[in-house]
């Protein structure tokens, strides 16, 4: 008796969903026509649908541009999203910013799948893993969505182009020069990185190693260790302390990651260590550690403007959707007041657009930047 009732309920449930589904999914043409009356006030959904209906619009107005960041709750990602949103909205489009629930590729796949359902016009994604988004992004491109990467690239097969914050070689060279300068040209140095699979981290570290080996100028520098702080303050702190204990003569630590550099800076500054720090970090997080003299642990560091990275990515999305470019080498497009940019070949076989050289933060300018990002 109970079981019968249960199975009857189950059947009702299943068939109800089937009907509900077929009523809409089976007849996509009707679906679009009915939408304005049946959509119950979901903003994003509405605009996404409008975009789907009005594909013949040549203007960017009414279209939807999505950005998928690496993780939630990170000011760097937030600034990128801010720049992205600003440019899209200034051009009359709708921006969707989605932060995945965790900093994993798995979580990003769910977000991308959802964006495909919403019928957005473009997706720009900061990949947590170069390869793991391929299935979802291929599906997006097959559905006519323009896919580009930003900040941290996907592999070449799953993107049309990539808004790169700075050339990999360029960053490697800049950091290498900083290490050379701070160490005085000789001695031991070490790297504190993020996670072992962070694509951009590994590319920069490889670039640094290559530059160090190819130029005899760096012959007296000895890279003693590469440690992974997993972008977690506790672990970054522990590995930095271990570096100082294991290598008492260590002269420079280079941390090309925002979490790692802040944790390392604190360790060095608290200990009053003679070892100095450079790398890539957020001015707002690092302001307390940047300064001249021995009481500060970081003489200077670098970063690009994350707002500009987001803006560049937005202009790329706009250009891709308008059909101005399609991500091939040599394409050029206008990026508003940022000037004109050209798509170039990337090292991984795909293409990229490079924002510009990294910006140097030192005691003279840190105070004006710390409130901005």
């Amino acid at each position, binding site marked *: 008796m*109970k079981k019968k*009732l*249960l199975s009857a*309920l*189950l059947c*009702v*449930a299943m068939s*109800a*969903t*089937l009907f*509900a*589904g*077929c009523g*809409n*999914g*089976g007849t996509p043409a009707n*679906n679009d026509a009915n*939408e304005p009356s*049946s*959509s*119950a006030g*979901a903003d*994003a*959904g509405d605009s*996404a*649908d409008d975009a789907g209906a009005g594909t013949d619009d040549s203007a960017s107005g009414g279209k939807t541009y999505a950005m998928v960041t690496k993780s*939630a709750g990170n000011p760097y990602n937030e600034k990128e999203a801010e720049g992205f949103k600003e440019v899209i909205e200034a051009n009359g489009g709708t921006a*969707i910013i989605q*932060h*995945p*629930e*965790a*900093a*994993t*590729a*798995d*979580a990003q*796949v*769910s*977000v991308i*799948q*959802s964006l*495909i*359902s*919403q*019928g957005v016009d473009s997706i720009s994604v900061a990949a*947590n*893993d*170069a*390869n*793991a*988004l*391929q*299935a*979802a992004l291929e599906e997006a491109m097959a559905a006519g969505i323009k896919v580009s990467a930003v900040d941290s690239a996907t*592999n070449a097969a799953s993107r049309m182009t990539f808004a790169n914050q700075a050339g990999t070689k360029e960053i490697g060279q800049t950091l290498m020069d900083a290490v050379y300068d701070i160490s005085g040209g000789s001695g031991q140095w070490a790297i504190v990185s993020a*996670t*072992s*699979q962070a694509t951009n981290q*590994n590319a920069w570290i490889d670039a640094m190693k290559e530059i160090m080996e190819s130029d005899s100028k760096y012959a007296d520098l000895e890279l003693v260790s590469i440690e992974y702080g997993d972008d977690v303050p506790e672990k970054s702190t522990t590995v930095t302390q271990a570096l100082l204990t294991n290598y008492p003569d260590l002269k420079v630590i280079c941390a090309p990651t925002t979490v790692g550099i802040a944790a390392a800076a604190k360790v060095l500054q608290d200990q009053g260590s003679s070892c100095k720090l450079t790398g890539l970090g957020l001015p707002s997080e690092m302001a307390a550690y940047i300064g001249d003299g021995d009481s500060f642990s970081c003489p200077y560091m670098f970063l690009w403007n994350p707002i500009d990275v987001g803006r560049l990515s937005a202009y790329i999305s706009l250009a891709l959707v308008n059909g101005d470019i399609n991500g091939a080498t040599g394409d050029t497009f206008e990026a508003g007041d940022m000037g004109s940019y050209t798509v170039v070949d990337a090292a991984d076989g795909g293409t990229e657009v490079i924002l510009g050289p990294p910006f140097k933060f030192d005691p003279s300018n840190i105070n004006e930047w710390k409130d901005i990002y």
Partner: protein
Amino acid sequence: MAGKSGRTISATPENVWKKQIFSWEGILVVIFLAVIVLCKLLSPNYTFVNVLREMPKYLTEIFLLFPMAYILMLGEIDISVGSIVCLSATAGCLISNAGVPFGAAAVLTLLVGAACGAVNGLILVKFPELPSMIITLGTQIVFRGIAEIVLGSGGSVSPTNMDGYRMIAGKIGPFPYIFFLVIISAVIFAVVSAKMKYGRSLYAIGSNRRTAFYSGIRVNKVIFIAYTLMGLFAGIAGLFLTSATYAANTTTGKGFEMDAIAMAVFGGIATTGGKGRMVGGVISAFIIICLRIGLGQINMNSQLILVIIGILLICAVLLPNITGSLRLKKRD
């Protein structure tokens, strides 16, 4: 709660809670319908085709639900499954990249999973005084750690020949293959737990391990099989997750164990053992999945979605308890 068995001796007649459990599954069906209607109202894109298209990645987690439900019925827990998914997916990609044909690589993926599960089972059977949570916490770190070592400094691997993975990600009409596999597994697991001797020994051990032992149930064997099954299905999940992402990395499957446990608990399967039915677990899994897809489509803050799931989880257990105690008071 109270002692290892977690049960209190009370005057409540048997059929009262049986009725409650039954009505819980009824409520779940109602909730399921409500979720569908709600999402439909919220998002114009919440169509049958779209929901099914987004589903495969979520469905991989249901594979973990089935054996996890068994383990919970035993009164045990396994928090290493996310890492087993990671290790087996990694192994699968590396084996297939070594030139092994896809079929064999797939079987080896499952075997790696099953082997990990067997290790858990073996330790637990050999050292029954150890809580399963702690052992699987240790192996959780170890299994993912091994994946980190074999993946090396890149931390990620992608199969060079993706044909096989593309094939298992295929569809019949709008239905992905994995959907049928989930339904078939659900039926088998439900029938085994409700009708077969193995299923009844799960409940018996979960209710009282010692009594079960003295009534002739081979407790160790049942536990070992449950954990090995857990590993095997984590392997299956790893295989399908690879087909949904074309890669395995060190964060693959992170947090899956909690999702699987949440699904089971929401479905009325108690973590104290001996209670609950597979049907409830499966319905609740679809509730959570459909809700996540719907809220994702209106671009709700991903952290808020987790908050909602957390509240649902607590209410799912709290409400029956409160109404149950009210009912008892009335009778008195």
